[in-house]
């Protein structure tokens, strides 16, 4: 059997024109979206390329800036007070504290259904595991759940949703010393749903308020759900549900449940797949579209041409290589999880442009033996100059029209610090602004 030999070049590559823009952003996560927004709002013609759907779908939807110091001190009350004391290699130090503030301002401007922008102080948001997360911004649906509120809480879990065990989460919160009473109950979601129904199924039925079938009768979903909770409600003044209260109309769903129950209703942020993450993704992509950018998802960027400057990059589509050119490029491909930084037994590397990633030659130095130890790999990523241009191993600028943003950057451990979103927004903003300025 003979397989066709793959042609690496289109037969008509000679006549190929590149798809052109001023600023080309590679990556559709929070960093890529923010840099594209910042560049587009500065007047640049922007194109964003993302291989797959945005990883925001896996994000909790909480937007943190800095919850803990690199030494593990915290939770921090005011991240902006601490940023100037971070190590010099930290991306926040590269862009500076005022830029972090401006970048969060852009986020607030674009994502109007988020709260927390009125203050520098971190909010404390209970999570589905029963921990309390210090975070800078949160969806308005989580507002009534804040841990700084002293009203008692009833957490409601669903039998079919093993990701959220409400009694256990409540016990965790009590043990964490929250200033209110908290109980958890588990109910079955009304209607004949399959045991592994998707979060989107529940969200859909609450969005549309379709009838659900209960003991042979068709009854409206929102009201019936509220009634099931009401029978468990004692004198708590707020009720928390897993974050599935509608995809398109969450405010209306919360309001309906709240009216029925006579108490405030909030959503507890969940792990993947996350409806608050999807809502945030949709809001940011819509804003980017409104800003006039072009967006293409579905195919990877696999290579580039250029030495001191990136001249063009290639998008791979089933064997065809489609050139895209721009004046300025932003690398926002993610870190070790997002595959913007990769490793094998030989070393750690940035796979697209081959940007230098500093790491020990001995791979047994990359991690600590303690699972929750201070792993060096968590800080792997590219190092940059002050305008976020990646540096080669000798400290020179790798390409003069390439900037990096988000988790592809080294020098910080976002999981330990709770700084992932803030770094993506602040560095995305900076990279986008610089790129737009230089593209003129």
């Amino acid at each position, binding site marked *: 059997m003979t397989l066709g030999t793959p042609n690496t070049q289109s037969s008509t590559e000679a006549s190929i024109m590149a798809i052109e823009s001023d600023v080309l952003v590679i990556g559709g996560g929070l960093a890529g979206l923010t840099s594209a927004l910042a560049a587009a709002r500065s007047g640049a013609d922007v194109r964003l390329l*993302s291989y797959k759907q945005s990883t925001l779908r896996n994000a909790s939807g909480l937007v943190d800036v800095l919850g803990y110091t690199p030494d593990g001190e915290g939770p921090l009350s005011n991240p902006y007070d601490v940023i100037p004391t971070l190590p010099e290699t930290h991306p926040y130090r590269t862009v500076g504290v005022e830029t972090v503030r401006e970048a969060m301002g852009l986020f607030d401007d674009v994502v109007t259904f988020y709260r927390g922008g009125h203050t520098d102080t971190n909010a404390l948001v209970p999570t589905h595991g029963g921990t309390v997360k210090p975070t800078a911004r949160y969806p308005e649906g989580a507002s009534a759940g804040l841990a700084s509120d002293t009203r008692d809480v009833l957490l409601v879990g669903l039998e079919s949703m093993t990701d959220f065990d409400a009694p256990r989460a409540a016990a965790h919160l009590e043990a964490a010393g929250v200033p209110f009473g908290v109980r958890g109950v588990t109910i079955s979601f009304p209607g004949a749903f399959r045991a592994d129904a998707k979060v*989107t199924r529940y969200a859909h039925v609450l969005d549309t308020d379709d009838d659900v079938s209960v003991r042979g009768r068709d009854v409206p979903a929102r009201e019936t759900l509220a009634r099931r909770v009401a029978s468990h409600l004692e004198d708590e003044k707020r009720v928390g549900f897993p974050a599935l209260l509608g995809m398109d109309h969450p405010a209306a769903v919360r309001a309906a449940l709240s009216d029925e129950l006579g108490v405030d209703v909030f959503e507890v942020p969940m792990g993947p*797949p996350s409806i608050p993450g999807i809502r945030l993704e949709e809001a940011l992509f819509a804003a980017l579209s409104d800003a006039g950018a072009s*967006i293409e998802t579905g195919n990877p960027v696999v290579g580039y041409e250029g030495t001191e400057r990136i001249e063009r990059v290639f998008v791979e589509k089933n*064997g065809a290589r489609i050139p895209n050119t721009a004046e300025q490029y932003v690398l926002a491909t993610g870190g070790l999880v*997002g595959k913007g930084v990769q490793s094998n037994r030989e070393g750690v590397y940035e796979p697209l442009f081959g940007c230098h990633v500093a790491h020990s030659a001995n791979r047994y130095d990359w991690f600590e033996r303690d699972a929750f130890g201070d792993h060096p790999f968590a800080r792997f990523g590219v190092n940059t100059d002050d305008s976020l241009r990646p540096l080669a191993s000798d400290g020179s600028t790798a390409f003069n029209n390439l900037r990096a943003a988000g988790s592809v950057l080294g020098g910080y451990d976002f999981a330990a610090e709770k700084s992932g979103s803030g770094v993506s927004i602040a560095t995305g903003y900076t990279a986008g602004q610089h790129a737009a300025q230089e593209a003129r």
Partner: protein
Amino acid sequence: MTDTDSTRTDDRRTASASDATDEQTTLSTDGGTDSARSEKREEVSPATPSTEKAFGPTVPNTGTEFEPVEVFPESTDFDLRPGSDSCYKCSTCDTNCPVAEVDDDFPGPKFQGPEQWRLKQAEEGYDIDESVMDCSNCMRCDNACPAGVPLSQMHNTARAEYVSENMSTFSLEYWRNRILANYRTSAWIASKTPRLANFAMNFGPARWLMEKTMGVTSEREFPAFARETFREWWDSQGGADGSRERARTARERRGDSVDAEKKVAYFHGCYANYNTPEVGKAMVRVYEHFGYEVVVPEQGCSGTPMFANGMLDDARRHAEVTVSSMSDLVEQGYDAIASCTSCSLALRQEYPELFDIEGIRDVSSHTFESIEYLRIHEDLAGALADAEIEGALADEFAYHAPCHARNQGLDRQAVELFRDLDGVEIEDVGDSCSGISGTYGWKAEKYKTSMAIGEEMFEHMEDAAGETGMTECPTCAMQMEHGTGYEIRHPLELLEAALVT
């Protein structure tokens, strides 16, 4: 995001039976999520002294005496194990599934793909779950997966196995599906007497009978067959010779070299041939306007409706016809152009994922959607900047992006291209699925689900300013028309109006 290994991915997907067996006998040492992308697995290397020191007595037994174990029996199928191993159960695919969002019997793509594949290995005589027939093959899960799991490839192979192993060839469902999947055959017969066919296919009592006996919903109106097929029109225009003449004239007008190597082979598919020849004509006129010679080679159905019904043998027969003629043309410097996004996706993605026909990968890597190709090779935005739409198409359009446009990165193409065009307004009606998914929405038992999925799109279309619809996909167009009563146009028609007339 980036993936320098993607050509190797293709190798994996087209791995021959013998390759697959080789791979299965070697254990992977690559624990990362990219293991699916490894063409050749590394041998497990013996532990070095330094690792023994670092790990002490807990070092895994990977010494020289280690013998790789054959975990799974030999198989002649495509090797889906690396893809299955890559799934880390984030369930993002499930949140993209339009069926799982409304259908309480459907377990979602994560089950249909990697989980069912594992069940099949673990259990002797495991039967594919019948719910695989409820998958509409929209292929959104492919675009969703952050780990590159080839979900639709898994669904297509599982569905084919279910149909061949578990569905009786004497059942009405089998024959109903087979007839729907082989739309091209019915359309070919109907095109002989289009007027009679148009009457008969929508004749009330006949439709009642079709629903009762075959399970074809009587809720929908059959699309009208054109009185002149695209191919008949093409012949009347002088075929390839006529096109070469017109292309040369256009090149002269454009100031291009008259002998420029600009030639494309048009894959019109069944629908543009039998039902909407105006789309095919627009393709030809627009391409000739830019100086391209068009040829219209012998071709089968793209296979899209056959994949969705698990009829892979039928699909393969048609693919062999298409690949045979297209691969010859590709060798001569032609690129293959489709105006239907499902056809272009089939040639690009499903062909190399499902068949190992000679030349199939050359065809795959040289296939493009019609407007995509012009965007790459011509200054389309520049040409449109000076254009203005007048007359019948000076309108406001409610645009729906077909699911099959997504894997190709084309879901925003029409909106971004036309948003600055004078004389028209174009509005994206959102990212929901139209719900018809080819033959899916024609099945009586699927009609309700199909309309429930489409509800969001209908609402957004009603909300949009325009009262004319636009999409690249013929069956999405049927659903859009069915749900709103709007007339639906193809972007090529707008391009033709802007540039040619």
